[in-house]
């Protein structure tokens, strides 16, 4: 008697890739939606002296921010360029320059951030925040 052995089929059936692609697509979409590429950045704000304004310091500069994002110094409106010029001048004269931003009533955080960013760009990194005297 001759034993007959079934030989295996030569070409194996390949695994279907479709379910795999489905899963990978779902993962891809999940990671695309759930991840954020926003940079974590901002400006530093010194708040140590927000309680009271230190008086009689020659190197203290108080910059007021008006409701329409203007800058005001010693009661008069001033352009940002003029202000930066004055600040650089004051920095040359006094070693420790103390800059305080004073947002006036009706001003918004955006104009405060503008001012802080501009000052930081010009190298005035220590800027405090102070409330308007009522």
């Amino acid at each position, binding site marked *: 008697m001759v034993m007959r052995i079934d030989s295996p089929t030569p070409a194996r059936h390949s695994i279907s890739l479709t379910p795999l*692609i489905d899963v*990978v697509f779902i993962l891809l979409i999940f990671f695309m939606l*759930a*991840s954020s590429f926003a940079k*974590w*950045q901002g*400006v*530093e704000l010194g708040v140590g002296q*927000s309680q009271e304004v230190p008086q009689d310091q020659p190197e203290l500069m108080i910059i007021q921010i008006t409701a329409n994002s203007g800058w005001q110094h010693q009661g008069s409106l001033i352009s940002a360029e003029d202000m930066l010029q004055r600040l650089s001048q004051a920095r040359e004269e006094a070693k420790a320059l103390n800059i305080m931003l004073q947002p006036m009533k009706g001003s918004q955080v955006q104009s*405060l951030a503008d001012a802080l960013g501009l000052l930081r760009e010009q190298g005035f990194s220590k800027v405090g925040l102070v409330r308007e005297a009522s």
Partner: protein
Amino acid sequence: MNRPLKIEQPAARSQPENTLPMINVVFLLLIFFMLAGAFKRPELLPVILPEAQGLQEFQREELLLLVGAEGKIAFDGQLLSLEQLGAQIALHQEQLQASGLQLKADADLDSQRLLDVVEVLAEQGITSVKLMAERFE
């Protein structure tokens, strides 16, 4: 001359498209998003950050103070009033005094409200507040 027109029969079955290059690309994209993207943390308040120049990059901290456009305050996963904020800050005082507090304030927030919040922080001895912003385009 009457020759019969010969029309070539299209192949009965078109070859199935090769999906391997597509899978390769999709895998690459998947790996890119997995590695390069940090997970967004859900936040209690919608905050539109102000835009500014001269920004500094910070390490992402766990504790984040949110102040919405209407002045609502959220800290450490809960909505708080100004009075409650002081107590909550006090719980994390040491950590915050060392690292500073990251503050996300809405661009349209009234700055007087920001001053209120900042004064509460100063009472708790937090001297450095990082006002988060987006790069000015």
